């Protein structure tokens, strides 16, 4: 009974268009779970159903062991935080004023605003109006708002899509810290390296169905080949299998000092996604 999210046979149709066909997964407490899929695959729709913003068409959706619909209740809303692609920030107010509003709605101590600003590296910009911010800064303000009340469960819908590498790294560190303190994280992304760096487990969503689910390591083992590419000094590229037979070949090349580079052919999550769905991830 430690599942924070339990989704079974979730189905969602808009009018007649099917957005989610049959989606099942569970997320344990303390996990960072990545929901990967191309545009239009149903990632945002799933988050909206989980946070009781949209009604499901069919299936069972439990959060903290209770029907997701109960997340509408004021007290339950304190249990999760959410970052979405449309920020919903007050454009005439400053960063700080926006966060102050929400700290009051969550009835948090004053210190919460500063902590949240530090988390997203925006303390020195706190007096800036939202209307003057870049997309990446806006995304960070939304993230600050999502984590300010230290929720048990965090929904992040493409949290770093507009960020530069430095801020992305800063946010990753912050998210890991939150996770170590016990926050369960559900994140969607197009970014395969983000999923590899951050997620304990990932699910591939394609056309409203989950095509594969597991830890990045296990998925690579399951779908990857075990071969190694050896580049020789004469320019030739040889692909060999890991195992005794080919090891001798490699040993021979090394002895005669012919090897210039060796690398594994481990697939990226992106490769695996293409292999499974036959389509690219963007």
């Amino acid at each position, binding site marked *: 009974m430690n599942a924070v999210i339990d989704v079974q046979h979730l189905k969602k149709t808009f009018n007649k268009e099917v957005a989610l066909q049959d989606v099942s997964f569970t997320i344990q407490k303390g996990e960072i779970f990545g929901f990967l899929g191309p545009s239009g695959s149903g990632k945002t729709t799933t988050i909206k159903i989980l946070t009781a913003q949209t009604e499901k068409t069919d299936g069972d959706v439990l959060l903290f062991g209770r029907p997701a619909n109960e997340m509408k209740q004021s007290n339950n809303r304190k249990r999760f935080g959410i970052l979405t692609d449309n920020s*919903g920030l007050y454009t005439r107010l400053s960063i700080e004023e926006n966060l102050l509003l929400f700290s*009051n709605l969550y009835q948090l101590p004053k210190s919460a605003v500063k902590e949240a600003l530090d988390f997203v590296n925006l303390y020195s910009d706190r007096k800036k109006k939202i209307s003057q911010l870049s997309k990446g800064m806006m995304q960070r303000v939304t993230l600050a708002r999502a984590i300010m009340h230290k929720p048990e469960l965090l929904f992040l819908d493409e949290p770093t899509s507009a960020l530069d590498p430095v801020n992305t790294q800063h946010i990753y560190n912050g998210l890991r810290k939150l996770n170590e303190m016990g926050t369960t994280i559900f994140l969607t992304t197009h970014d395969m390296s983000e999923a590899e760096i951050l997620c304990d487990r990932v699910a591939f969503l394609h056309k409203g169905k989950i095509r594969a689910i597991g830890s990045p390591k296990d998925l690579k083992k399951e779908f990857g080949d075990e071969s190694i590419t050896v580049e020789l000094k004469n320019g030739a590229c040889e692909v060999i299998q890991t195992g005794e037979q080919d090891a001798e070949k490699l040993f021979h090349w090394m002895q005669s000092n012919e090897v210039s580079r060796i690398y594994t052919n481990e697939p990226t999550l992106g490769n695996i996604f293409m292999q499974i769905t036959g389509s690219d991830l963007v």
Partner: protein
Amino acid sequence: MNLSMTRIQAILIKDYKEFSRNYAVSLMVLMPLFLAFLYSKSGSATIATYFLSINIAFSMVTTYVQCCLIAEEKEKNTLRSLMLSPASLGDILIGKSLFVFIITMVIVALIIFIVGYSPANLFILAIALILSTVFYIAIGTLCGLFAKTVMEGSLIILPVILIFSFGPLALALSSSSPISKIAEWLPSSQLVLLAEALEGTYTTMDVIIPMVAIIVWSLVTWIAAGFIYKKRMVD
């Protein structure tokens, strides 16, 4: 419903800040004051002219501001983010309405001062003004929920201004004309009739009927707003 003073206050302060920096809307508030000033200079000191300014304030300040505040929250997706926080619909609506209520009271008081109106029975008139404000907030809420953008809201509001602010002018027509008969039952007309009655000798009924009329308008409008909310906001 789960209400909290802290949250209501937070919403009210937020709306005040947003409003005071939104000149397109906040300058509208000065219009009725300007009109009142013109009337005071024209020297036509009748209850009907006093209330022309007051009734314009009700639609151009109370209804318009409430409508814009709500429409903008929808347009900019901020209502969604509020609804995902612990703020209840009641917190949001009360905080907003309270803000609009306060500016309405300030503007109406200023108008009364500018035109030099000294009502014979300030207590009864104050109650009628408060009830009227609640009604105009309801109309603003209804329009704001109906509109998807501030632009749309500003358009929807035009007939409201026309009917409610200028409706009482039809009272000057002969009392047998059908337009005058209908216009008589507008909440704005009822307010004028009440204020006129207060200046002479009046019966209890002269007070009760306008009050009840305004309350009924208010109730019906709030119910309609609740209905629109259910239809529009659930997807």
